[in-house]
C-alpha cells in the first residue's frame, strides 16, 4: 500500500492538508504541490543547501525530509520569511554587498543565516563560515555573503530591526 496519504502542515503560518505520496520529499511537496518554488532543489542529497527551510524553528534540508515526516509540524519557507519581514535586513544586505549572482543558492543562504542569527546574535566570521559549510555557491564565493551576514548581526546588535529594511512600496 503506497497510495497518497493526507499530510497536515502549517506552512508560513497557514495550516493546510494535502494528499502526498509518502516518498515525496518536503522539497517536492513545497515546489510542486504548493507552488512555493523559492525552496530550490539542487543536489537532492543534503550537500548543497539550496533546499533549506525552517522546520519547527530550525533550518533543515527539505530534500532530506519526506513531507509525511514533517506532518504536524510548522514549516517556514523563504517566501514566508520574506513576507513576514524577519529577513528583510538580510535580503537588503545581500543586495547591497552583491552577495549573489545567479541567486540559486540564495534562499538556502538566507535560511542558514536566519537560523544562525536566531541561535547566536553576534557570531564571529569563523562561526558564520562554519554555519555556511553546508551551503554551496557556485557563482559568488563566500566573502560577500559572510560580509552581509556579519553586517546584519552588527546592525541588529545596535538595535536596528529587520522590518526597518523592508523595501519601500513602489
Amino acid at each position: 500500500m503506497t497510495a497518497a496519504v493526507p499530510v497536515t502542515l502549517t506552512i508560513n503560518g497557514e495550516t493546510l492538508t494535502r494528499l502526498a505520496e509518502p516518498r515525496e520529499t518536503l522539497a517536492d511537496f513545497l515546489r510542486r504541490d504548493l507552488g512555493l518554488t523559492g525552496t530550490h532543489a539542487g543536489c537532492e542529497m543534503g550537500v548543497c543547501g539550496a533546499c533549506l527551510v525552517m522546520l519547527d524553528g530550525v533550518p533543515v534540508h527539505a530534500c532530506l525530509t519526506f513531507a509525511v515526516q514533517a506532518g504536524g509540524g510548522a514549516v517556514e519557507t523563504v517566501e514566508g520569511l520574506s513576507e513576514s519581514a524577519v529577513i528583510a535586513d538580510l535580503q537588503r544586505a545581500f543586495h547591497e554587498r552583491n552577495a549573489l549572482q545567479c541567486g540559486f543558492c540564495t534562499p538556502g543562504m538566507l535560511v542558514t543565516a536566519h537560523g544562525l542569527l536566531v541561535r547566536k546574535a553576534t557570531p564571529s566570521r569563523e562561526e558564520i563560515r562554519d554555519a555556511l559549510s553546508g551551503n554551496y555557491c557556485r557563482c559568488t564565493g563566500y566573502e560577500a555573503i559572510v560580509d552581509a551576514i556579519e553586517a546584519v548581526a552588527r546592525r541588529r546588535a545596535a538595535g536596528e530591526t529587520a522590518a526597518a529594511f523592508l523595501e519601500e512600496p513602489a
Partner: protein
Amino acid sequence: MKARAFSYFRPATIAEALAAFAEAAGDASYIAGGQSLVPALALRLQAPERLIDIAHIPELRGISLQDGSLRLGALTRHVEAHDDPLIARYAPLLALAAPHVAHPAIRNRGTLGGSVALADPASEFPAMMLAMDAEMEIAGPEGARRVPAAAFFQDLYQTAIEPGELLVAFHIPAAHPQHRCAFDELARRRGDYAIVGCGAMLGLEGGLVEEARIALLSVGPVPVRARTAETVLAGGVLDAETIRRAQAALADDLDPQDDEQVPAAMRLHLARVLLGRLLGRIAEAS
C-alpha cells in the same frame, strides 16, 4: 533520483514500532532523522516496502543522569549533543565531536541513535561511544538487553542490533571532573567525513594519568580503541616522551588498509599526528 514507493507508519510506542516491523516481514526500515536513510532511499540503495518513523516515540527521548550514568535517548539529536549542559559535563566527548559531524542543518535532524545504529566507520559518535565505554540499550521482540560498545560494533555497518530491533538509549558512565577530554579530526573540508578522527579521555590525578581511553574513527571497518597506546599512558606522567611512545604504540592498535584516497601508512601517520596533538592539548591544559 527519487525513492521507490513505500508505505509510511508513525508508531507512538516501541511496542507498536516492533509490531509494525514484524508485520512487514522484514521488508521495512526504521527512520529517525533520515539524514542517512533518505539519501540511501533516493539512490535506491535501499527500497523497503514500509517506512516506520520512530521520531515521535517519547520512550526514545530524554537526557538524564541516573546513578552516575548518563542516559541518552536514541532520538537525542546531534545539535543537542552540542548544546545540552548535561552532555557537556558528563559526556564531553560527544559535545566536542558534534561540531565535526556534517553541517548545522543535518545536525538539527540527525540523531545519535541513527548515527550509532548505522555505524559508518567514518562517523564520530560511534567511536566516541567506544571511548566512553557506553552501553547500548536495545529493544526487540524478546525484550530489552544491553550491549557494551566493545561488543556492539561488529563489522562494516554491522552492529549487535538484529533486524527489527530498536536502539533505545545509550548509558554512558558519567565523566568525572578529573577527566580531560579532547577530540579532533583531519578532513578535507569542514563537515566532510574525516580521513582520520580521534577522541581521548584521560583521568588525571596529581599529575598522573590514572586512566586513558582513546578511540579512533575512519581507520578500519569499525571504530577502534587504542588499547596499547592507553596502556603506555596509564600510570605515568603526561610528558613529551610518553606522548611520543603512545603515538608509536598506535602501530599495534591500528591496521588501516590502503584505499583509493589514502595509503595505509599515511593513515597511520595521520592518526599519530592527531593523537600527538590531542595529548599535547590535554597536557598543556592541565
